[in-house]
Each structure stands twice: as C-alpha cells, then as structure tokens.
C-alpha cells in the first residue's frame, strides 16, 4: 500500500478532520461571547412568540375545517396510554398474586429467576 503521507485518500480524510476541528473550535469561541447569547436568545424569543400565535391560528383553522386538532389527537393518545397503564397495573397485580401463591422466586414475567448466589470470579480468571 502507498505510504500514508502520500496517500491522497488519507490526506483528504485528514484534511476533513482538520477542517472539522478548526471550524468547531472557531465556532465555539464565537458562541462563547455574550453577544452571541444575546442575538440567539432574541431570535429564539421571537420564534417562540410566533410559534405560539401560529399554533393558536392553526387550531381555529382546523376547527373550521371540521378536523381534529393536535390537542384532540393528543387527548386520544392520552386515553390509549391510560388504558395501557391500567393493563400494566393489572399485569403487575397478577404477577404479585402469582408470586404470593408460590414459594419459588419468580420474575416480572412469571418465569423462574436464577438464584442470587453469584460471587465475582477471582482476579485473573476469565468470565464467560
């Protein structure tokens, strides 16, 4: 293979790496200034206000088009999650009942658990 110092592909890759480092370093210096923070937060603040107003406008539009709004879709998702949560609670209760009825160490899936007797292997001895 060609010497790495003369390999055009290696040179290209090294160059990309250096450009990345250099740009990151330059940008980090620029972003550390109070002026940067001021500008970014001014722009961000304006965006947040615009986003809020746009959201409210969109909500009215969807109502007029007889389409579900985001809030309504989220509401449906919440009801589904609530049903899932209740199913999980029932599942957990069933596991508890199963554990209480049997003496064996059973896990969350109701399967037998291995014994809690493990000890660390002596130093130098490879583990599986």
């Amino acid at each position: 293979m060609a010497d790495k110092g003369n390999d055009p592909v290696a040179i290209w890759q090294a160059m990309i790496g250096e450009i990345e480092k250099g740009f990151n370093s330059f940008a980090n210096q620029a972003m550390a200034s109070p002026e940067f923070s001021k500008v970014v937060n001014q722009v961000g603040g304006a965006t947040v206000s615009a986003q809020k107003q746009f959201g409210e406008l969109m909500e009215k539009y969807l109502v007029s088009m007889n389409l579900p709004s985001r809030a309504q879709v989220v509401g449906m998702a919440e009801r589904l999650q609530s049903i899932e949560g209740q199913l999980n609670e029932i599942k957990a209760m069933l596991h508890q009942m199963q554990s209480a009825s049997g003496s064996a160490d059973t896990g969350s899936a109701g399967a037998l658990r291995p014994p809690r007797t493990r000890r660390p292997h002596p130093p130098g001895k490879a583990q599986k």
Partner: protein
Amino acid sequence: MNAPIGLDPASMAERIQAEVQRAIQRSIKGVEYIASSGPSLGSTPKDVLHVRGTMSLYHYRPIADEIYRVPVLIVMATTNRGYILDMIPGQSFIEFLLKRGYDVYMLDWTAPRPEEKCLRMEDYVLDFIPDCIRRVQQDSGESDVTVIGYCFGGVLSLLYGSIFPDGPIKNLICFTTPIDFHEMKLFRNFSDRRYFDVDRLVDSIGNVPPEMILSSFEMLRPASRAAGQVQLWENIWNDEYVKSYRMFDRWATDTLPLAGEYFRAITKDLMWDNKLFNGTMSVGGRPADISRIKVPILHAVAEHDHIVPYDAAKHLIAKVGSADKEEVMLKGGHVSLVAGANAIKRLWPKLDSWLGGRSI
C-alpha cells in the same frame, strides 16, 4: 519519468484500483442505505414492570445461571432514550451486565405529554425514582439496590442519594455526570440569564421541544454533522461502519422534549445558581447536598467529552461523603464512553470489576 520520492507506482495502482472498487460499492450501498431501515435497537428481552406518564420501568430477563444478590437500576438521562445502553447483540451494555450475572432494571423516559409540562424536579427525584426503587425491591425481593445514572440520570441519582442517604441505594455509579454547571461554558452562555428568558419560554410553549434540545447539543460541535455525512459517504462501502453510524445517528437525533417546569428548575437552580456544586440545592424543600452521600461510588468520565467537559464533572468524587469512592477517566467521548467498541474494551470490564464484589 520517475515517481516522486515515497510514491511507489505499483502500490499507487493498487490503491487506485481499491478506490475504484469502493466507488462502485458506494453507489450500490448508497441506494441500499436509502432504501433500508437501520438495525433493530434495544432488543434484549425485557418486561415492562410499570408505566406512568413519561416514566417506564423495565426489567431485563436474566440470562446467567446465577445472579448477584443486589439488583441494578439504571436511571437514564431525561433528554435521551435508554436504548443507547442496549444497541445490538454484542454491543449492548445491558446484555453485557446480564451475561456477567447482574439483575438489571431500567428507568427510561418517553416524551412528556403536553399536560406533563408541570412536572417538577421533585416529581423526578422524590416520586419517579423512589417509585421505581420500590418496585425493583418488590420484584427482586431485595432491599438493597445499585443505581447507575447516565449523564443527567446521574444528576437525578445524586439528588435522590443525597436526600435519602440511609438507603436503599447500596452502590452508586455515575457516568459523565456534571455537578459544576458553570463549567459547561457553552450551555451556560446559551442560557445567560441576561438574555435567556426561561419563564417566557416555558410559559409560552410548555414542554421544551426536542428540536431545541438537539440544536443545543449540535451547536457544541457545529461542523460535526456535516463532517459525519462526508465520512459516511466515504465509508458507505463498509457495512460495519454504516451499521454503527445508523445506530448512533438514530439515537442522537431521537431526543426527548423536557417538561417545562423541570427545565425551568434546571436552568435556574443548576445553570444559573450552580446550586448542586455550591451545596445549596434543595428539591421539594428538602436539602440535597451530595456530601451526605456515603455509599460506595464510582464516577466514569470521558477524556474527550464535549457535552459534559471534565471540569464540570471532576468535583463529584471530592464532594461526596463516601469513604469508598473512585473516579475513572477513560478514552472516548460522551457517548462512546458507554456504548460502542470503545466501551466494550474499557468501561464495561472496569464497571464489572468494581461492582461485582459490591453486589453480594
């Protein structure tokens, strides 16, 4: 004409041939890349033990013949998904722990819903974590629990451990956990109290959107995404590289929103007032001074962490009150410390050798 010094015409021909083959492979694999989805992540068998709003508690099915007495609860960072610790078989921290005989649970997060914008720091520290610990105790039948916190999961674990120093945490392990937020210089500048109106933000939009969280992470290394794309194209002939790229890229962009009130507390108490570092932090009116933590603690930090720089993490070990405490600095970055080839060689064996003897 002679070749320039150091350039061997035979090896150059070989190199050109290899590059032509790679160019052909790039075209074929490039189409495959666009047409296919990435590898399936987080597939280690697990049971959902409990789900409540943004909180999910999983139990991973043991695979060793015998397990350590003390179960392990992993507390994930609230900004990201837990599958970073369970990528694919052979590159999964969870799978590694299971094979080494640990009984593993994970407190993972889903996106908080709009009405969960009111979740406060105390909901995380005084409700979600204690609830999960109680359920781990019930499920395992053991009173002691080892807690592993990744990044901000480490901060939450520290807060919990400092409020409940008498148990049930038996061991505490933190990965890349910041405590001096004034040393997270760029984040601090982004949230400069003179210009950043956190009240206006939270009051206007409720939960902080994931795009905003992702942008703030990406701004720490603004050229890296573009450079990553160039590197991907160069290596698209290499299936292993592409698989790894897709796994990490998917995880990195799968950022979670943050509950509004919780974000407000992080900004004011940690970013602005640096209360965790100053020992003045309180959660729900209860003092949360990490010097109260007395349990064995291991803190793993990454040498090239651009998200949590070493200066932000280095005082943790000095400030906790534990007699049995250790900091380990390993090569790698914020993510490669815990996942990927680097972690397999370095962090995971170190953690096993530290935790095994403390889990009996």
